[in-house]
């Protein structure tokens, strides 16, 4: 099914449903999309701060006060001015929008043009990666650090209303039926499509979007997705231990965002672990519980009558879970993982520029301090270089002589010198 020409496709995620793959595919194939009359809005792979501002009014801890709002307005202007057959927006952060925020988004983009696409994935395949994602943003949450992964699962699956888990966003994103119904109540079921991601068919997600947008097959192939693998069990054990100390030490969210979330954690993900390095496992009871919730969601979504690409039954199928079992109780981690995390932090510090941050950013005290320190060091180096250059230029000036600078004896010496040079050149 292709969407009518002029449609604005708003892909709202939620998280952990192949959004990174899709965004990489759109961003890296902008030219091929343009040739086929499709624009991917924004300049980045993922216009995250714009979507956060529009969907919830939240901002990254490192963003300037109104950077997200400005970024969102740029996207709105781009959509309004576009003359392409389709414009695509994609961010998992739209999934968290309240009905009022959804209305605002539709009004700004032009409600009559917007078609909402929701990608869904079985809850049993989301739990582990979503918990890891939360752990990579730990200081931004009111999380009880005594909760390990099984403890968190118990809280969210068996006591969802008791916010000891500190991750209320989980059910805003992943009570999939409620999320779908929320969007349908504002957008209308006829202007929505749901794609159920089937991990057994790697191209299924991008192919579904190619069909929706009327693109040539193979247009949406990501050239590189960047680091997006899940952390291994030792990596996540180390990170949670680090987080505990980080929070206890009183370091802030903005510095965590810069140094860890978008720094050292990504650097860990770029590491290639051995095949036998343990993965984070989800206990069987949690898989069964999540599958039951998924089945309830699938039934409710089917009842809405919204167009579905793929198999809704997957949402309630416990057999699609991977990494099921109990995690090793060994609390030790390989030294190389510790080295990698530490190196990631050093790398962020070393790559910071020797200048204060631009107004669009709101860096934490550690980042600001490193920037200031580097700027001062650079200034001192430049001052030292300047002093050397002044001295050299003065010496050079002293060596350049005018005839009037010389006494008779001096002139005579110059002449004698030239005679000598001539004689020696003449052999």
């Amino acid at each position, binding site marked *: 099914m292709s969407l009518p020409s002029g449609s604005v496709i708003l892909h709202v995620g939620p998280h952990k449903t192949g959004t990174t793959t899709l965004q990489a595919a759109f961003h890296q194939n902008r030219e091929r999309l343009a040739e086929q009359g499709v624009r991917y809005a924004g300049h980045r792979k993922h216009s995250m701060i714009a979507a956060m501002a529009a969907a919830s009014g939240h901002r990254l801890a490192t963003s300037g006060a109104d950077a997200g709002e400005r970024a969102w307005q740029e996207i709105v202007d781009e959509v309004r001015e576009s003359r392409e057959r389709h414009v695509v927006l994609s961010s998992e952060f739209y999934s968290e929008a309240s009905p009022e925020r959804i209305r605002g988004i539709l009004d700004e983009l032009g409600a009559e043009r917007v078609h909402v696409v929701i990608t869904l994935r079985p809850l049993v395949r989301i739990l582990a990666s979503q918990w890891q994602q939360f752990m990579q943003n730990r200081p931004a949450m009111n999380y009880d650090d005594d909760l390990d992964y099984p403890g968190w699962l118990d809280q969210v699956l068996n006591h969802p209303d008791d916010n000891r888990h500190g991750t209320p966003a989980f059910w805003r994103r992943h009570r999939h039926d409620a999320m779908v119904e929320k969007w349908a109540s504002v957008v209308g079921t006829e202007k929505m499509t749901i794609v159920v991601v089937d991990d057994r068919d790697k191209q299924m997600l991008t192919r579904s979007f190619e069909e929706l947008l009327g693109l040539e097959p193979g247009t949406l192939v990501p050239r590189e997705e960047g680091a997006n693998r899940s952390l291994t069990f030792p990596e996540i054990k180390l990170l949670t231990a*680090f987080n505990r100390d980080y929070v206890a*030490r009183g370091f802030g969210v903005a510095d965590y965002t810069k140094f860890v979330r978008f720094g050292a954690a990504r650097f860990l993900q770029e590491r290639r672990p051995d095949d036998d390095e343990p993965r984070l496992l989800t206990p069987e009871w949690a898989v069964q519980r999540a599958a039951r919730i998924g089945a309830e969601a699938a039934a409710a979504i089917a009842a809405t009558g919204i167009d579905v690409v793929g198999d809704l039954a997957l949402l309630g199928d416990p057999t699609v879970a991977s990494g099921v079992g109990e995690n090793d109780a060994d609390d030790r981690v390989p*030294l190389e993982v510790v080295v990698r995390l530490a190196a990631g932090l050093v790398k962020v510090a070393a790559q910071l520029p020797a200048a204060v941050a631009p107004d669009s950013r709101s860096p934490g005290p550690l980042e600001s301090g490193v920037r200031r320190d580097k700027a001062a060091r650079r200034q001192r180096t430049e001052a030292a270089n300047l002093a050397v250059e002044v001295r050299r230029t003065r010496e050079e*000036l002293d060596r350049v002589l*005018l005839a009037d600078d010389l006494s008779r004896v001096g*002139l005579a010496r*110059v002449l004698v010198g030239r005679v000598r040079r001539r004689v020696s050149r003449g052999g």
Partner: protein
Amino acid sequence: MAEQAGPGSLGERVQAELASAQLRDTTLVERLAAALDTAAADHGLDGTSLPGHLPADLGGSLALAVLEAIATSLETETQPVDQPVDERVDDERRRELEDLRNRLAQRRDDPENIENLSFGALARRLVRRRQPAGTGAR
């Protein structure tokens, strides 16, 4: 399980891990690597022979030592070891350098620069210097 990780301190391993990143701020990298070695020593780890595995809590504390070192250096940076730089002095120096360079260029281009004068021209100036004032040869 008491296997060793081979030679190399924690700081050296971090520097090796970053070798391919070709970071330009080697001063900071070395400083933070040294802080890691200090933290490892504080936790009783032998810098020349590290174990292949560490308790996760210890690993987390060691990694945090990078940020601790930054925070500590920022606290001490309020009174820098080096001479503080006065930007006005820098500006004066830049103006002085520009002035010197202008003068240098002028002197190099000056027809009276001895490098620009021929042998004969130099000889004539020498002869003129030998003439008493007012008796210059024409």
